[in-house]
């Protein structure tokens, strides 16, 4: 009987030791992973800030106005003026056409409901 208890106890000790050991290493691996991810996030942030700077540089008003001038023949862009504003009622709307649905689409996010 005593021997049996000894065997069981030592088995438990070995199992616990193994468990603790593995936990220790998984934790360390996770910490390393977090550090790696943090580094990646920092890299991405840096990339984003550089892209933002580049975007701002490419969209600087001076360049855009030069581009508008260069492409005047194609785009015919002129500075916004008071004459460009008008009342909504004054704008001639395109005549309304009734929509003809020839092929209905299944909308999956709405439980497969059919429209219309």
């Amino acid at each position, binding site marked *: 009987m005593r021997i049996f208890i000894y065997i069981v106890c030592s088995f438990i000790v070995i199992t616990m030791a193994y468990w603790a050991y593995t936990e220790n290493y998984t934790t360390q691996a996770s910490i390393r992973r977090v550090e790696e991810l943090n580094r990646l996030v*920092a890299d991405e942030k840096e990339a984003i800030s*550089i892209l933002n700077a580049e975007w701002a*540089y490419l969209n600087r*008003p001076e360049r855009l*106005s030069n581009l508008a001038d260069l492409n005047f023949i194609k785009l015919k862009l002129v500075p916004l003026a*008071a*004459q*460009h*504003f008008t009342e909504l009622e004054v704008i001639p709307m395109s005549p309304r056409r009734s929509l003809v649905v020839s092929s209905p689409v299944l909308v999956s996010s709405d439980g497969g409901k059919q429209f219309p």
Partner: protein
Amino acid sequence: MRRKPLRPLAHIISARQNGKNPDFIEAKERSKRNQALQLKTRVRAENRLLVLGLIFIIGFSAIGGKMAMLASSSVQEVRQYNTGSKIINQRANIVDRNGNILATNMSTQALYAQPPLMIDPKKAADDIYKIFPDLDYERLAKNFGSDKRKFVWVKKSVSPEQQQLVHDLGEPGLLFGNREMRLYPNGKLAAHILGGTRFGEEGVRAAEIVGVGGVEKYFDKMLRDPALEGEPLKLSIDLTVQAATRQVLKDGMRLMNAKGASAILMDVNTGEIISLVSLPDFDPNNRPRAAILGDPSENPLFNRAAQGLYELGSTFKIFTAATSLEKGLVNPQTIIDTTPFRWNRKTYKDYKNYGLTNSVEDIIMKSSNVGTIRMALAAGTSAQKKTLKDLGFFEAVPVELGEASRTKPQIPKNWSDTSTITISFGHGISATPLHLATAYSIVANGGFRVKPTIKKIDFGNLSREQVISPKTSKQLISMLRRVVSEKDGTAKMAKVEGYEVAGKTGTAEKIKPTGGYYDDKVIATFASIFPASDPKYTLVVSLDEPEIEVYGKNRRTAGYTSVPVAAEIISRVAPILNLRPIVPNNKMTYTSISSQ
């Protein structure tokens, strides 16, 4: 040791006498001897085992202990951190009111040299000079060749292309350190607002960025505060409006042959500065050094709008009218004597003869000096002082620009009656265009005090301290409107369809450094508010020494110079500001924007 004999004689003899075999005795003795030997050997062997066992135990426990320690402790490897990612975004971005970036950071590299590591210092200096021709070759060669120098800065920021070229040299003594660099993507656009930065404390791996002017300096602490986690600083500036204003002002300055110009666009209710331009300007990415020689006000770094103290001339007449209206001495239709006025052996006259009498509104419209003088003297010095103090002319403008807060207006020490006379039409007092914009905002917004700001603010928390009564404000606005709308007004060129511009011109002769006034150099200012029916914005345009030939005559007055420039700015900027054009009969027509 005495050995016991195997066959002791006495025992043998007695055994023989008893008839026993004496060989037994020998055998007995021999076995005794063997037993003793065995015992001895055994003890020795046991001791040896013990010692050996101890050695093993010590050895194994040492190894085991070490293993246990290794297993229980976490690994501390030597790791190379990416320092570049750590220092980026150290300084917060600056954005305009719509979130467009005005200032941001870029990671860059600084090039330094360690001469002891160099293989061929002479060649390295030659090659570096080829890549960076702007460097001082003599200094490079001397530093690289020196035995004493262990460390030499070569260039503070290097582009990736240049970095590759340096790498291609293959010189081990040339090294790079991470740097963060301030970048202003819009270049000169908001130069005087942003100011600029320089490198502060420098290390090999990182350098501190310090603001040296404009908001970069004023908000330096805030921009560097790590607790704010890089939250961008939102300015009240509108990038598009700023670009349009600068463009028009620059063209106008060239057209009017002016040597400098400034424009301020302010929200009359909140005091937010939507646009502030001072020309000539500079590129904050490459901020020039402050000039040691010469007049600082000629330097591009000088912010004419916030730092330039000028006599702003007739634009002040509206404040004189305000004083009289507030005191209840006059109403817009009160008739005032406009004959030449004599005081202390000096005669004050108008630019032209405007007749014997004029109403108050006509005095403002035609810009009559003598009419204004008579109004000011009737109201008295203390009333004039009070009005100007309320409008902010006695203190530096409390805007978040270091340059502005150091610029106190010049007011006369002894405010004599002569001062009252000259100040009534804007002479003898020097203030910045920013002061003027603030005062006109107060006139325009119904008489509430305005605190100019460069930071975007929420409309909710405004102090509504009344300085001028709403009635006076209304009357002043309609007087200013007449300056533009009437045939005889001095600013009739400021008519902008749809935006009901109101304003007042001011042409002040420049003060000679030696005393007295130049008769051919003026500061031409136009202070305007729009739209007059519900004022939203104030625009102050000031040109330094403008001159233009109109109808065969050289003209310098604001009516011919700053007014058309201001009108062009308003016509460009008002639609961008989403101001609804005011059209007679409230009828708008349809015009296609695209002409295709």
